[in-house]
């Protein structure tokens, strides 16, 4: 594994080799149709060290961080955590924060679920 793949494994705490390719993650994913790389494919990208494609993927930001895949994965591979780790890699590289707490009130309306806010922070800021 390359350094970056190792880093993803370390950040996520996930062993991609445990995946048995059952697809339950993709079957559970509410954003499946929006994603270019599907949840069940994440491990393949990591296994063959194609981290660049993964970090360039739209899926990084289409993931809702709902963690349905993490919850339901029978092998403890947790694709949601993998993609989260990939996202973090990008954020670390750019060294930027995408969402400042000051900007949040403007974005809020009554309909916004709390979870969305949390997901947003997960995605755009560390």
């Amino acid at each position: 594994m390359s350094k970056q793949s190792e880093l993803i494994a370390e950040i996520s705490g996930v062993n991609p080799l445990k995946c048995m390719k059952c697809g339950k993650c993709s079957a559970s994913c509410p954003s499946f149709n929006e994603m270019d790389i599907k949840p069940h494919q994440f491990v393949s990208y990591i296994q063959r060290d194609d981290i660049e494609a993964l970090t360039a993927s739209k899926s990084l930001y289409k993931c809702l961080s709902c963690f349905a895949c993490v919850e339901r994965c029978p092998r403890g591979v947790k694709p949601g955590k993998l993609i989260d780790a990939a996202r973090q890699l990008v954020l670390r590289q750019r060294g930027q924060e995408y969402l400042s707490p000051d900007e949040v009130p403007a974005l809020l309306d009554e309909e916004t679920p709390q979870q969305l806010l949390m997901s947003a922070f997960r995605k755009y800021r560390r």
Partner: protein
Amino acid sequence: MQKIGVFVCHCGSNIAATVDVKKVAKMALKEPGVCHAEDYPYMCSEAGQSRIAAAIAEKGLTGIVVCSCSPRMHEATFRKAAERCGLNPYMVEIANLREHCSWIHKDMEEATEKAVILMRAAVAKVHLNTPLQAGESAVTKRALVIGGGIAGIQTAIDIADAGYKVDIVEKTPSIGGRMSQLDKTFPTLDCSACILTPKMVEAAAHENITIHTYSEVEKVSGFVGNFTVDIRKKARMVDMTKCTGCGVCQEKCPSRKTANEFNRGLNTRSAIYTPFAQAIPNVPVIDTESCIKFKTGKCGVCAAVCQAGAIDYKQQDEIITETYGAIVVATGFDTIKLDKYGEYAYGQSKDVITSLELERIMNAAGPTKGHLERLSDGKAPKEIVFIQCVGSRCSDDRGKPYCSKICCMYTAKHAMLIRDKYPDVNVTVFYIDVRTPGKNFDEFYRRAVEDYGVNYVKGQVGKVAPQPDGSLLVQGVDLLDNKQILKKADMVVLATAIEPNPDARKIATMLTASIDTNNFLTEAHPKLRPVESPTAGVFLSGVCQGPKDIPETVAQAGAAAVKVIGLLAKDKLKTNPCTAQADELLCNGCSTCANVCPYGAITYEVRLVNDHGIREERRVASVNSALCQGCGACTVACPSGAMDLQGFSNRQIIAEVDAICR
């Protein structure tokens, strides 16, 4: 001083590739008492053994160390080889250079260094070995089979046919087990009951078979050849000798609301009941927890309608004690509970069912009389989805890490039967892998696809959502198409993982048989002794050992029977001579050892003892070597060191410790 020969095996390259065997042999010669050392590619081979024989003859060896594989593998081989040359078999020790050294280490220097130390420990032990003589114990020519499913029935019939007495103990009111609940069997689609009931009848009618239904094993003591077992015969509240099996009591019983276990709780039964029509014995039992008479004291309808006068509300549990030479465990399986799998909506919707429930629905004697219908509204389903691997192959704590093995095939069977009987019903199977190793199995699965048009989708289901209109929305994935699928279904069938009978652990504990973390009983050797437990005299039949289908179960049942017959055919068994011995001169007579002996092998007697000229009567321990199994608990309990274990004496173990720490 002993004359010790050391024989270092290369085990082809298994040992020699990592351990410098020549060096081990060379170093052996430096050990005190070692007057012969050699290495050879295959010590266990005919040629290897004859080299040992030659060395014993030439050098007059009194003790032997074989540096080879695990003693669990070839200790018996080398002991026999020594015995053939007139050397006591217990003068042989094994240094485990393969499993404990060469196979786990890579660095040759390190492995060789360790190998030398292991060899030294074995040499140090052999110095203190003494010739031991195996005793004999008689064999009770009767076998016990725990569990009356197809595995237990087949094992019992095979043993009984060989002329030995067999008792079957079955927990439920009837023999038949899981197979009696099945509708059809793969891959030939025989009717399950049609092939099972003749076997049940055969067992019941066999002169050598005694069946104890509604009974449980309560206590086991003794050892191979001589087990003593307490069996609790639960009170049926029905006199077996009087009951004619007419069934009137069941028809008239006013309590009808108890979940019917046989139909997996899909309908209800009366409080007095036989689980199914072909039950053996065809004698009902009263479920005292549901019976109105037992709950309120007022009823007694069954007794009133019973022409034979068989109802006996005062019946008590009865404990019978029997002795057996061998015990077969055939406790079978159940499906796992699905309460942790909320995403499949099992329990939320009546139309999400397990495959075993589907068996009951498809069965003419089942809750729907064999009509395929939704349990929620009784309508005929048009779209059925099967989900594979529900709880199987899961590494989390929701399911089981193993493959349940039978699901791929029974799902193909179900799909095929449904498409055959109801061609207008669409069947979709979501699978991870289709596993069909077995004679005619893959052909069977292909028929489901090719001849019956079952739609197999490679991918899992993430969620089953019950809809307001009563349908089920199945969200799955087609991995080959890389598309998510949303499918409206009328019925969802879950291929639920199987797990060993929850009583398996309790029974294994009673039998002191090994059991693994999944509660499957462990076999003595995964390849070479698959139907024996490591505990002598205990054998394994059916799913209690691991997931299997019916043909495999029946094959294993026969194999277990052969092992039992082989045991019962012997009049005497050689007993392990590695038993405890009490030194009467050191014994305080304090009874501490007897308090920890699990076999009651230690008794006390007042004996005239000559202690270096002092003659006096002393209370001293005495070990019955036929009962002693050689655990050594007493040796540590004894404060004076009077109790010692032959073959694993205090001095022998200390010599090994010293050699390792030298």
